[in-house]
């Protein structure tokens, strides 16, 4: 994997940053692509701002060669620019990690059409736009791979999560379809399905919570973890980094959606 060039969308925080660091620490050159917002995000929890981008560059930069660029995966021109910025900076693109994702939850009768569109725009259309932009560059590589961050929500439905589950099932479907489509170009396409990782998405939104007290939040998180996960521990961003590295390097694996969930999801 030495010297390979990896582009990670949603790479400034959480799982994306874990993936960035895993590749950087094995000698890959990594482009961190994320929103890098100048002002407060209008979403239901904080998305990556400029400060997050700077911190990501600092922490991942200590492990290997990284750079960053702004990216909104719902915007075609922005996706094309991110690919161009990567090739301009590093001369090639070998691995695309479609990790950018957002969540919104709630019963369908109360769920706004705007939120539905936003979830699908990032989690589903984002993969399409990034793949479309990156395939020409990936086709030049002799061992290219795409890894999509889906979710265990892409394997089983949950109440109040129609938009998120729908978008992640779609991510798995796109993974399989692209695996077929791109195999003749020697581009492998796989997905990881993270379980419960204590990122902003989980702690600030997914965990049902009536308190802002940090200790109580942690206690609830730990209780959820020990009840729901056979291995009895939460997953980490490092787990996702290692899984992505393995899938990017496993030359005869394509079209799979690997659950990294401590056994929550087994199919």
């Amino acid at each position, binding site marked *: 994997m030495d010297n390979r060039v990896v582009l990670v969308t949603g790479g400034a925080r959480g799982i994306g940053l874990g993936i960035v660091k895993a590749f950087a620490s094995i000698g890959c050159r990594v482009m961190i692509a994320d929103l890098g917002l100048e002002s407060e995000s209008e979403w239901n929890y904080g998305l990556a701002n400029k400060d997050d981008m700077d911190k990501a560059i600092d922490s991942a930069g200590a492990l290997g060669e990284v750079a960053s660029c702004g990216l909104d995966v719902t915007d075609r021109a922005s996706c094309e620019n991110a690919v161009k910025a990567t090739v301009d900076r590093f001369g090639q693109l070998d691995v695309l990690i479609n990790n950018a994702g957002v969540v919104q939850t709630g019963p369908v009768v109360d769920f706004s059409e705007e939120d539905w569109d936003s979830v699908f725009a990032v989690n589903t259309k984002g993969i399409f736009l990034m793949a479309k932009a990156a395939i020409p560059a990936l086709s030049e590589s002799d061992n290219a791979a795409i890894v999509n961050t889906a979710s265990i929500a892409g394997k089983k439905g949950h109440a109040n999560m129609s938009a998120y589950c729908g978008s992640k099932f779609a991510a798995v479907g796109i993974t399989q379809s692209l*695996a077929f489509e791109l*195999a003749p170009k020697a581009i*492998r396409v796989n997905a990881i399905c993270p*379980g419960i990782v204590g990122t902003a998405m989980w702690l600030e939104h997914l965990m049902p919570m009536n308190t802002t007290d940090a200790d109580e939040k942690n206690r609830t998180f730990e209780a959820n973890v020990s009840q729901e996960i056979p291995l009895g521990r939460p997953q980490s961003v490092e787990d996702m980094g290692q899984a992505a590295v393995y899938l990017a390097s*496993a030359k005869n*694996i394509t079209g799979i959606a690997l659950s990294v969930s401590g*056994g929550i999801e*087994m*199919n």
Partner: protein
Amino acid sequence: MKLQGQVAIVTAAGRGIGKGIALALATEGARLVVNSFSEKTLANTVDAIKELGAEVISLSGDITDPLKMIALRDLALSEYGQIDILVNNVGAGPKQSEKPPEHELGLTASVWDGLYGQNLKPVVLMTEAVIPHMKQRKTGKVIHISSIAGRTSLSDKALNSFVHPAYGAMKAALISYTQTQAEMFGPFNINVNAVCPGIIYTDAWKSGAQNAVQNIPEYSGMDPREWFEGIAKGRYPDIFDRTPLRREQTVEDIGNAVIFLVSQDSMNITGQSLMVDGGMVKI
């Protein structure tokens, strides 16, 4: 090295996939405990492991015999004091039964019994032999070698000529067993996963290829190796599904998959059945 000092049992490690797994574990610094039916093939594997600079002990003989399983476990414990990794690689296609019962279901019954005895029962019993030790230490990694045949139905022609339906059924059972064990032993910090190899040119497929060029009229006279290469290249669409990556898999692929699944890199992956098949089965 990812497995420095860890002790790994690999069954049926004399040839093919089992040997590939044992060598892969050795390159990562594991201490190996290997078994094979044949003394001769086992000696080859032991030599190859030693050439890599790894420690190894071995026990030849029939690993479908529960007493042999117990002996293999006890050998590992007496020699190395611990077992960190168990790779259940034992498995085989149908063998000619000595003398099936003479009633109309006799042949079917003996083939199914035989495949159960070769593919499922020895995995269950070997795991039962090792699990108490792993539970006590609250650490362990168990890998079952399943198959693409455990995840999908093959074509009628493939089932008639190459893969008995009972083989697929036993390999599918291993996937279920992987999941139930992952649930049961998760609280003891034991990860249980399966690897599903695709089509690899081991001795089993060498004889499959031989069979194809001898017994299927349209392939008559072909070189067996060339015929085999045609599977991944998609030349027999009425027998084998497409392999999107158009290349055969290797024992090294399976070794790498096992290394990933028994290393710290996958500490939070359990209950999974990892397809290493060039995309033939899409799960």
